[in-house]
């Protein structure tokens, strides 16, 4: 019997081998295209008024120029893009942008400041996800036509309700996807039921950038093609092909075999292996994203700041940083990401270490000497389950019994927004390299009442409201003296590491395996610049 079975296997193997002989052509990517493997499940639309997740943000950044851009070499600087230059009014409440000449959309329509003003107004009028980017700075449906205007084809005027720091406005608005120039004519030709082209832009781009969207097959691939009419010259790689590959292991294989040039979602183990491999380089940059363990302050135990502080001593920042997060995060306990204006340095921004005795003592001080019970929800992201289990094991040692519950991102999302959780492992990404970005969302909570439903504020989701913290955040925002502004943010960070609503754990790292055939892969926390890459 075993003999026969062996024979059958040999036969099967021979058949399989035969097939491989047929497909002998060795894989290599086209010389004028950049081929990336990336999990692009999250793409649901290309409408700049709506997109929020990482993949589309990067794609829009490569297809739609904004008024200004982050310097590819230094994320803290802004450089001209659609706007050649800008002037700021004496009182800091008006910025006038001068646009480039001869801007043309891929459709052939000329692009003017009027299109840009319309595009920005559109974001507020639609009220989708990214409207908050503008409403946060005082733009409303009622005033947006006065506050954003185009007196002529090459001038765009931005009026502000308060004298915000100009650098912040440039980063938060002018460099953001909400300030991209959309092809009004094309879009409005496809308007359905007054949706301002939202449905059309779900599967199309109509704006000015180095590339344009040629094709998107959900769960399969995205193809970008060089925009022939681009003002900034032609990119060397004419096509960018992004293949949807969900599994990290598969991505690694494709990269090793040369089927793709860049792999975006590798696990630490893959990274480790790839690091030693000839022909492949690891590209690495810090992301403005924080991974945190968030506590619902409505839970009696978590309402107590001593308890919240105790929880921070249950996290072995160092060990996790060296293993599970080795390649995808650096330990960080401050709510301001490294690299941002006003951030505490790496050392001061992460003072915690695993200390069960300290945790036990803090629990006793907080009135829970014997611990308590709580649930912890987390998503299917690869690092979430190990971190959750790590914390659970440590917590058990001080009597804190955590029930783990893993769920799909979308579901986690709904539970988090609805305050239907006790603790959560989640991540938050800001769009500005300024402490204000996270202070305004993770700490500041304008209205903690349930009926306020400020679901876009993680602080609200965590039922966290601190008068003192709100005051400092508000003061720092409008402080015109830079040193003083930095000092305020630093104070807030130190306070929040002790009493904040969440235990910030890691700042994410962007990592990619890049084949050496691709030169000049350029990226940082606020963008990847495909047009700068080339092949030899």
């Amino acid at each position, binding site marked *: 019997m075993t003999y026969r079975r062996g024979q059958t296997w040999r036969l099967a193997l021979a058949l399989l081998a035969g097939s491989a002989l047929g497909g002998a052509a060795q894989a*290599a990517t086209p010389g004028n295209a950049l081929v990336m493997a990336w999990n692009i499940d*999250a793409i649901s639309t290309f409408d700049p008024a709506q997109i929020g997740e990482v993949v589309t943000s990067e794609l829009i950044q490569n297809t739609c120029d904004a008024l200004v851009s982050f310097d590819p070499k230094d994320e803290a600087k802004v450089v001209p893009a659609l706007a050649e230059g800008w002037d700021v009014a004496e009182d800091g409440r008006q910025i006038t942008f001068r646009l480039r000449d001869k801007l043309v959309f891929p459709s052939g329509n000329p692009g003017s400041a009027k299109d840009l003003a319309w595009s920005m107004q559109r974001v507020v009028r639609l009220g*989708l996800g*990214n409207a*908050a980017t503008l409403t946060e700075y005082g733009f409303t449906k009622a005033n947006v036509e006065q506050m954003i205007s185009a007196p002529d084809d090459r001038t765009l005027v931005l009026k502000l309700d308060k004298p915000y720091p100009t650098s912040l406005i440039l980063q938060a608005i002018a460099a953001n996807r909400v300030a991209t120039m959309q092809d009004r004519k094309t879009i409005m030709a496809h308007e359905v039921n007054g949706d301002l082209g939202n449905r059309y832009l779900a*599967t199309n781009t109509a704006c000015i950038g180095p590339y344009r969207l040629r094709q998107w097959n959900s769960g399969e691939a995205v193809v970008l093609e060089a925009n022939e009419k681009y003002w900034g010259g032609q990119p060397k790689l004419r096509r960018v092909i992004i293949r949807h590959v969900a599994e990290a292991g598969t991505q690694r*294989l494709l990269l090793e075999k040369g089927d793709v040039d860049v792999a975006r979602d590798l696990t630490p183990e893959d990274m480790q292996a790839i690091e030693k491999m000839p022909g492949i380089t690891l590209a690495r940059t810090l992301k403005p994203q924080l991974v945190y363990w968030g506590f619902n302050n409505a839970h009696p135990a978590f309402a107590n700041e001593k308890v919240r502080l105790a929880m921070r001593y249950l996290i072995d920042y160092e060990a996790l940083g060296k293993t599970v997060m080795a390649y995808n995060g650096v330990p960080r306990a401050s709510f301001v990401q490294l690299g941002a204006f006003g951030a505490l340095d790496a050392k001061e921004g992460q003072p915690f270490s695993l200390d069960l005795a300290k945790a036990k003592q803090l629990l006793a001080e907080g009135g829970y000497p014997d611990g308590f019970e709580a649930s912890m929800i987390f998503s*299917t992201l690869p690092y979430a389950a190990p971190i959750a289990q790590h914390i659970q094991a440590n917590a058990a040692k001080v009597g804190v019994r955590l029930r783990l519950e893993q769920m799909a991102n*979308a579901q986690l999302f*709904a539970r988090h927004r609805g305050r239907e959780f006790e603790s959560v492992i989640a991540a938050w990404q800001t769009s500005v390299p300024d402490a204000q970005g996270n202070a305004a969302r993770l700490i500041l909570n304008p209205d903690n009442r349930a009926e306020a439903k400020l679901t876009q504020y993680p602080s609200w989701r965590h039922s966290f409201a601190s008068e003192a913290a709100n005051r400092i955040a508000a003061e720092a925002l409008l402080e015109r003296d830079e040193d003083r502004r930095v000092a305020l943010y630093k104070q807030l960070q130190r306070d929040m590491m002790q009493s904040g609503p969440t235990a910030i754990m890691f700042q994410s790292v962007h990592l990619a395996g890049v084949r050496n055939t691709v030169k000049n892969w350029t990226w940082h926390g606020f963008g990847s610049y495909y047009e700068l890459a080339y092949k030899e």
Partner: protein
Amino acid sequence: MADVAAIPVSRSGRGRAAALPGRVSTMVRLVVSIAVTLFGLMALTFFIGRLLPLDPVAAILGDNASQEAYEAMQRQLGLDQPLHIQFLRYVYDIVRLDFGTALMTGKPVLEDIRRVFPATIELATVGIVIGTGLGIPLGVLAAAYRDTAIDYFVRIFGLLGYSMPNFWLGLMGLVLFYATLGWVEGPGRIDTAYQWDIEPVTDLLLLDTAMAGQWDIFWNAFGHIILPASILGFGAMAYISRMTRSFMLEQLAQEYVIAARVKGLSWGRTVWVHAFRNVAVQVVTVVALAYAFLLEGAVLTETVFAWPGFGRYLTNALLGGDMNAVVGCTLVVGIIFVGLNLLSDLLYRIFDPRTR
């Protein structure tokens, strides 16, 4: 009518011929019963859809949307209506073949399904060819040489096919045949380099490239499909060989077989020509059902092989919280299953001498 219990297989019974109660005498009753089943399908999928703890509104609007925008979208989706109104609306939409828009893709669910289905069809077809090509001869041999080493081998091999977690086999297969040995191509349907050179006619890559004479691409696609299809085919082979064996045993116990032997016909001829001919129809119905089961197997296999087909679309929808797509897919699978069951039932009724 064949007793369900006569089908000695774990997965069967559900898929078997006894789909309709009693003897259906008129077409009317058949049509009514199909309509009722379809209505039931809709009720069940609607129920599942409403139960899903996924928030379609948040999924559309993103993490940053205000409550005002949230409620507006809720109204737009009709989620503020009472349940029975929502159900009627759901039925009305489906009857008009409107399955709603998939949040993942921004396109109508039905259009998405139409787009991803050819990949699954191609995979399942190659799988069933492998499964049938191996399963039938093995089943016949096992029956002809009952209780010999061949029989045991076929039965154990078949049982392995039943017991195998196919997603795991796929994973291990990739490690061995692609990563280590390099005998087959990797995940996906085709190398990226070829992706834009194909003129889609049927969307079945093997067929399209063969018709266009693009043999290098054909072999590339073949290298991609062979491993997942073999793994799917293994399961189908298990089912088909087992059923064939059991049908054949029944035939070989008949008197005409003995008569044929007495007349001096060789065993091989008796088995293949006489006995097998009599079970051919039954085998065809089994193959039809095995084909349907491949759809199920494809869900996890496609996930492992990054195969851009229906199964992966469904898993993505599930994990991504795309309610419309989940419900749409479930409904489509249900309809296909009803159809295939009906087909196999009809085949059975038309050809089986005992029900004639």
